[in-house]
């Protein structure tokens, strides 16, 4: 698939109740996809576990859509809301 010329990073957000194995579960999928985790930050926001990951998918064997599907499925297993968004959306929306 044609990769976007603007960027090759995706932002993964995870919202839900904290539990063991969240990062392990997500990073396993990313490692299998050959996607490189650039940054992870996590906080508890209004009682909810919130994690944001910046991931480079330039060398990934999967497309964004496939990674999103895999992670959303994982999110259902772990009872978490996982979203995968292309970095361009954030750059466009918050910066000129």
């Amino acid at each position: 698939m044609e990769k976007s010329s603007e960027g090759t990073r995706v932002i993964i957000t995870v919202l839900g109740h904290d539990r063991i194995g969240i990062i392990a579960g997500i990073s396993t999928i990313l490692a299998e996809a050959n996607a490189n985790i650039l940054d992870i930050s996590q906080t508890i926001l209004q009682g909810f576990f919130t994690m944001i990951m910046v991931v480079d998918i330039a060398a990934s064997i999967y497309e964004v859509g496939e990674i999103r599907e895999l992670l959303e499925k994982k999110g259902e297993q772990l009872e978490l809301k996982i979203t995968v968004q292309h970095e361009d959306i954030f750059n466009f929306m918050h910066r000129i």
Partner: protein
Amino acid sequence: MPFSISKDEILETVSMLQTENLDIRTITMGISIQDCRMSDGETTGTKIYDKICRYACKLVAVGEEITREYGIPIINKRLSVTPVAIVANGLNRDEMVMVGKYMDKAADEVGVNFIGGFSALVHKGFSSGDLALVEAIPETLGTTERVCSSINVGTTRAGINMDAVLAMGEIVKKTAARSADRDGLGCAKLVVFCNAVEDNPFMAGAFHGVGEPECTLNIGVSGPGVVLHAVKKHPDLELGELANVIKKTAFKVTRTGELVGRVASRKLGVPFGIVDLSLAPTPAIGDSVADILEAMGLENVGAHGTTACLAMLNDAVKKGGAMASSYVGGLSGAFIPVSEDQGFINAAACGAISLDKLEAMTCVCSVGLDMIAIPGDTSAAIIAAIIADEAAIGMINRKTTAVRIIPVPGKKEGDWVEFGGLLGRAPIIKVNQNSPARFVNRKGRIPAPIHSLNN
């Protein structure tokens, strides 16, 4: 390049997309069909069909690819073409119907849900093609699924063609009759304009103007849910500051449209036309323009103060949106389609909003009396007069106005009508029964207004 977006900004964007119904309402590909005129309806239709299929074959696939890649829902992919009355001038009524059938077939083939451009611009008078097309509207809208029709009956520079207004009163009635088995659904695909724009991406009034290039992409963003959320977060803010909150939100919503427009344009190899800044509601809960007005401080939309709230909302959305895109255009204003907005549906059901108040609201927003169900026995003269009033508002205020009303066959005030999907549902609302027949039957033109002494 380092990723410099803060955590709060990331969560704000995710929440807009996940819970506040932020989406791209439509990617509309405009295609010039001016080179498709052949000797008769059949061959002209075939040529239009071939050209549309050639240009738009990848439109739906690219839309879906962008949704997958960027995680932004793109609700509709649509087409608009050059007004058929211009291209097919000289063909007769039956041949116009034939052209409409080919448009429908092309839309079906490329997988879009609507195609606009079964249109005529008659603000100063009818050509023979215009007359044939107008007469073909009831049958075309009654027998096709995806074709949308629009007629421009007035402009600020030309005045209002009252012959056309009267004719459209009749045509709206006939269109309702032709689709009586579906509660007059044909009328949901028919718009009567004053000051129609050439690059509108929204149905049913989209057409590809004669000043437009061979092919172009116009984007309609959505976002009432996002604006509603932002307004609700500030229940006591002073109005100037509230306008700023709306501007910032509209900016972000429009940037999403700009991104999708640029990507789609690159992937399809078609020039990016405009982003339309309109706030377009859907019947989904929380995706309502009426709810925003109520969140600004009205007990019910339709209350006194509604017009002022809408004026401020509409202006703030434009100010924020204009900063966000290289090219803005189309209709660019808040829509108030009654049956497509849960807040308006509720207000109409409890009698809080009337046709008269809706008309007043159209003085300060896009685009006109939209998706309003009225009693089936409303006379053609009254419908023509409703169109005339709305066109007068557009003409004097140098803005686009339109009428898309449905006289629902066999139903009366207080009954309900279900159009389904994005077209929604609505109660039939009251129409003033005093007769304007003598006025609309005078015919002729209302002269263009003076452009100074603006009061």
